[in-house]
């Protein structure tokens, strides 16, 4: 991730590993606390969540660092502690189970800064990488014969890989409008459905966006990349859940219904547009869409909410919410008719054949555009830090006071980048719907390709949280973390009021992905945040040196996963072995109570840039 391949020079503490380790106390079954003093100037403690399967990665990294005398990569624990020393931070700096070393902030680090504290800062970083999930009414059985065709169609429709360019014609004026309007632009132009907006964090638009705060260089990069997947750990995937047969006649049995909910086709594609604002060129890796099957339902009640109730038979409405959206027109490449797929559904032995397409887009957020916005901000902020003589533990933690002109300009530019990321994800959703429509000769509307949710992974947002028993306005930085708001929070869509916000966790190529839900406990302890993915276990360079891309592709083929790859040699960077075990990461979050397991998914097709 951001700057991970760049060694940093850091003032060594002169302590041994054992001495460093004394600052870190286990305070719960899966929770550790880093006491002030671990690094200079800590204003609050830092805390991180890992279980016994993951903790060695954290401590080995620290041990390696102390042995090297403080040179080389700064370990994640040191970075978390450094964040705890930033002005205006409240409560604690939080490391999530997928936490690993990043640029300044560690990836998987959450910190909140008091908006009413004039000293409080904002720090730039990746902007609005994210994941979105779209469901379909297809079953795994329906998809199986078309799997290769579908993977190819997705590959053809969504330009992938380093330097890819989108197929949506966009002028500079239109780009400005998109930056300002976010998903409202997609909606206006017909690339998105009204329900997409309803099911997106922030309704797909940050209102403080001001395109004037964005450099023309960034815009130039952004214009041609709209609707492209990108590379790096950006990928799209489809996940399908395995359906169970219904025995005999229809029974009104909750358990039976729930298990049927587990039987939906889901496809996950992850897109995040903003690589890291470092000197590393953006998109050095590979992007991959995947098709997965649902493996396990952990919370049937909540799972049913994300599937059946929101598609054909909404829990709230009674009748299906069929909206004669103009946007649909553009999607219908092939005239609507009773296609094979629909017939097979009708004759199916299964109860309620309902599918889900999950688009998971990780580094496909704001792409070159977002990278440029963050880089521009970083340069400005580094200048400001040296002018104001702000003492920072790590020069990578460049930041500016929230209220300062630079801080405000960054927030406006960041909002533009976030809007661009949503437009990009919406565009890819449009293209995915088109790909499905082509393969199944059926309008996306008839495939019920509704979006379940869209979560952001890297963004700073103003939110209200309780601090010392009173509500405070905080600027919550989530670097490689997902917002996970609890049930009945006013900012989550009406469907999820009783389940909590869906949290979409993309795994890696060939591994599971997850849907979790937010909890009240998470809202209290982690500012309503949870993990965002597997988290790197080894750096990209390390992966390139030690893994062979052919082995990885063969391993995927053995699992009966369809693969489309634009840059095979970059596959090893994103190989499952380069990452932590996503199941362990998710299990830790579940155990810590900061989010709840809901649905486990397994890939059946992968598309990488």
């Amino acid at each position, binding site marked *: 991730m951001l700057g991970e391949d760049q060694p940093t020079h850091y003032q060594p503490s002169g302590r041994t590993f054992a001495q460093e380790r004394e600052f870190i106390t286990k305070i719960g079954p899966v929770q550790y606390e880093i006491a002030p003093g671990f690094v200079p100037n800590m204003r609050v403690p830092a805390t991180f969540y890992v279980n016994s399967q993951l903790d060695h990665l954290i401590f080995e990294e620290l041990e390696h660092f102390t042995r090297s005398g403080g040179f080389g990569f700064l370990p994640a624990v040191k970075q978390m502690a450094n964040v705890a020393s930033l002005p205006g931070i409240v409560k604690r700096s939080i490391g999530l189970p997928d936490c690993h070393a990043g640029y300044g902030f560690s990836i998987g680090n959450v910190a909140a800064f008091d908006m009413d504290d004039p000293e409080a800062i904002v720090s730039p970083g990746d902007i609005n990488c994210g994941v979105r999930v779209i469901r379909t009414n297809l079953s795994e059985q329906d998809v199986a014969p078309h799997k290769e065709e579908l993977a190819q169609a997705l590959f053809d429709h969504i330009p992938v*890989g380093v330097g890819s360019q989108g197929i949506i014609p966009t002028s500079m004026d239109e780009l400005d409008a998109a930056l300002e309007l976010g998903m409202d632009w997609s909606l206006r132009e017909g690339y998105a459905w009204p329900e997409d907006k309803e099911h997106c964090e922030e309704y797909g638009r940050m209102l403080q966006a001001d395109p004037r705060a964005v450099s023309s260089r960034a815009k130039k990069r952004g214009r041609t990349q709209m609707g492209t997947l990108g590379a790096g750990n950006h990928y799209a995937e489809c996940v399908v859940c395995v359906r169970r047969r219904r025995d005999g006649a229809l029974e009104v049995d909750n358990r039976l219904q729930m298990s049927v909910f587990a039987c939906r086709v889901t496809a996950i594609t992850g897109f995040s547009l903003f690589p890291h604002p470092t000197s590393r060129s953006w998109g050095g890796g590979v992007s991959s869409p995947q098709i997965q099957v649902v493996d396990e339902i952990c919370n049937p*009640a909540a799972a049913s909410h994300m599937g059946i*109730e929101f598609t054909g038979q909404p*829990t709230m409405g009674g009748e299906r919410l069929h909206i004669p959206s103009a*946007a649909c*027109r553009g999607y219908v490449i092939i005239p609507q008719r009773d296609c094979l797929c629909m017939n097979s559904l009708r004759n199916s032995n299964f109860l309620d054949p309902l599918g889900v397409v999950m688009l998971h887009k990780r580094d496909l957020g704001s792409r070159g555009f977002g990278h440029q916005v963050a880089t521009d901000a970083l340069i400005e902020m580094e200048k400001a830090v040296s002018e104001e003589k702000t003492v920072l533990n790590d020069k990578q933690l460049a930041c500016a006071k929230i209220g300062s002109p630079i801080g405000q300009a960054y927030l406006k530019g960041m909002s533009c980048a976030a809007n661009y990321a949503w437009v990009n994800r919406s565009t890819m959703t*449009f293209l995915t719907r088109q790909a499905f429509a082509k393969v199944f000769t059926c309008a996306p509307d008839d495939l019920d390709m509704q979006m379940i949710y869209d979560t952001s992974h890297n963004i700073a947002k103003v939110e209200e949280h309780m601090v010392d028993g009173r509500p405070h306005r905080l600027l919550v930085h989530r670097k490689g973390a997902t917002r996970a708001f609890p049930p009945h929070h006013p900012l989550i869509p009406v469907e999820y009021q*009783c389940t909590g916000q869906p949290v979409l966790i993309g795994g890696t190529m060939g591994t599971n992905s997850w849907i979790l839900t937010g909890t009240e406990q998470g809202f209290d302890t982690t500012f309503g945040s949870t993990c965002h993915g597997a988290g790197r276990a080894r750096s990209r360079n390390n992966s390139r040196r030690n893994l062979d891309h052919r082995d990885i592709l063969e391993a995927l083929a053995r699992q009966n996963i369809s693969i489309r790859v634009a840059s095979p040699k970059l596959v090893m960077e994103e190989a499952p072995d380069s990452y932590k075990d996503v199941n362990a990461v998710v299990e830790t979050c579940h155990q810590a109570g900061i989010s709840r397991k809901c649905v486990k998914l397994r890939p059946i097709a992968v598309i990488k840039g």
Partner: protein
Amino acid sequence: MDLQRKLRVLEYPALEGFNVTDFSCLQLLVNWLEDSKIRFYPIDQRGGFKTEDKWWDTLSKYLTDLECPHAHCISAPQDHCPEVISWLLSTAISLEYNDNAAELNARSAANTPAASAEDESISPGFLEALHSFADLLHIPHTGDVLGLLQSIKTEIARHVELPPERLARTAHLHLAELYKSKAFVENLLTGKLESGIRTGDTHLDTAAALLRLLYIRQLREQQTRVNNCLATLQDATAQPKVDASLGKVGY
């Protein structure tokens, strides 16, 4: 309930056992109202009320003369007894008040300080919420908090005629029908989905969960209206286009 209160205000002597559907009760009341409170006709013209035969016709004419705003009541008062009586009682109260306004206002003013002293222990937030609740139920409010609470209780009791257990079950069925998903309602009420409120009192928790359901439904309807509105606008603006020649995969 409404009639009883008005009768009490007027200090009607035959309050006990008054029944609006009983002709003799009605006759007695109307005669009493005209004789002692309204006094619209001179005494010698009140004869029509004394005879049973033409009593309804007399009442009809009486209402016309009084300029009763409810035309349908005037033409056939016998079919609209509660409304007619309620209006007559209100008229009587209004006249009574006009006759004794000065005295009544003075009495009310004397009571006010006592009421506000009592209110001091009540937070303004609570009062505000109570007043908006009372407004919802169309209950006028003065400074008397206790009285207002009692009125609210009475008003709610009017609507809720079932014991709590039966009410919960009925509401449950009703909502299940409303949501077309028994499972959703079940899940919420049994705690598989969170209602967000746990008090330890089952009845209270059920009530809270039911309120949640109603609120969510209302929210859903509103969101659907917004979505429909956006879809309508899209008809005018949407023109998605794709140019495959612009596409470029990889380097």
